[in-house]
């Protein structure tokens, strides 16, 4: 991963993994991981809105700490962290969907130096 990686796509990929891995015993993880994946899918494909970014944080908060096993946290934290550190890139996906969904699109903003 370098500065050309699309954070939204990457986060969506994380979510897709955890959605697939969720065992389905406890309700926050079973329903929440799928929800996160669907919202991120929407953002990545240029159909998202600015509310969706806050929705992601809120859903992640509803999952973390309330599940039986740590898979819930593992699914929620990358999403919450991505929004916390790269909110501008999420907003770019919402405001410029055509640019952002072009194949090989790279976010033109400054790279975040940790």
């Amino acid at each position, binding site marked *: 991963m370098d500065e050309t990686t699309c954070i939204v796509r990457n986060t969506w990929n994380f979510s897709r993994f955890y*959605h697939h891995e969720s065992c*389905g*015993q*406890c*309700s926050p993880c*079973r*329903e929440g991981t799928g929800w996160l994946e669907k919202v991120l899918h929407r953002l990545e494909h240029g159909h998202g809105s600015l509310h969706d970014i806050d929705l992601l944080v809120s859903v992640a908060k*509803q999952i973390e700490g309330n599940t*039986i096993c740590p898979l819930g946290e593992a699914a929620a934290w990358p999403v919450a962290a991505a929004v916390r550190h790269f909110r501008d890139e999420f907003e770019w996906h919402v405001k410029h969907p055509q640019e952002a969904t072009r194949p090989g699109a790279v976010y033109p903003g400054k790279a975040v130096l940790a």
Partner: protein
Amino acid sequence: MAKITFDGIEVEVPDGTTILNAARTIGGGIVPPAMCYYTPLKGSGGKCRACLVRVAAGSTKDPRPMPKLVASCITPVQDGMVVENTTSEQVLNVRKGIVEMLLINHPLDCPVCDQAGECDLQNFAFEHGVSTTRYEEERRTFEKIDIGPLIQLHMTRCILCYRCVYTADQLTPERVHGVLGRGDASEIGTYIENIIDNDFSGNVIDVCPVGALTDKTWRFKQRVWFTKPVNAHRDCPKCTGNVVLWYKGKDVLRITARKNEYGEVKEWICNECRFEKKETSDWTIEGPAHIDRTSVISANHYELPVINPQIIADLPESSVRDLEQNPPLKLGN
């Protein structure tokens, strides 16, 4: 014995009791809701996360708070534990989130659902949830699965509490009923569309908190709040024969097991009692079944109100005489 403080109320319970059962010995509005825990079923609980509570102090020996909210239905008490349920803002907010999570893939077809009126999820959402949803995507749906002539399985409404799985496991000698798949694609079923053929299979209808498992002899006949529950018994060679008959006029529309105030079955009943004996002459009637005052079923007001004797003692004599002559509610017809 362990002494715990639950929402500021001290209670002493035997060692090994769960926090939820300790709260139930206090009773009232402070009892955490439970969607998957079911006292008669071994191993149930811990799945729905509706009963999460905050443990502010673990025990007398180690008074540190627990880092995460714990499921009260499976966490045993320890001496000196301090538990917060309704007094904790965090718990109430988390519970709102749980309602939202349970409802996002629930069809919300209460107007056509036979469980409406006695649905645990309906009560839970009404008491603890918010009235709006933020979920915009398509809800999960399933084809109806045929599991026999008596029970209807409608997976779309299922909240995967696993109660029916434990019931089928613990009441029947061989396992025919379980969860297939995983994650949000998991579904309750018999592999593959086997008919559940057992004398006690009807009990899965009673334990289901939602309308996923319903009685085929009762489906779409009547709304539950238009029927009148009456306690009755009969001599049954297979079960205790203590049931509730649900009357509409003179017809027995449905027979269920008796439930306690938390919706838990007191005694399992057999399929013969449940599905076949639908005549008043089959039963010895005991009297109206008690229904909680807050339940929509009690809208029929067939039961005379119990007046607090202390209130009567405080009333002037003329009012007492008046009350005796004209009781506030009369027996329904």
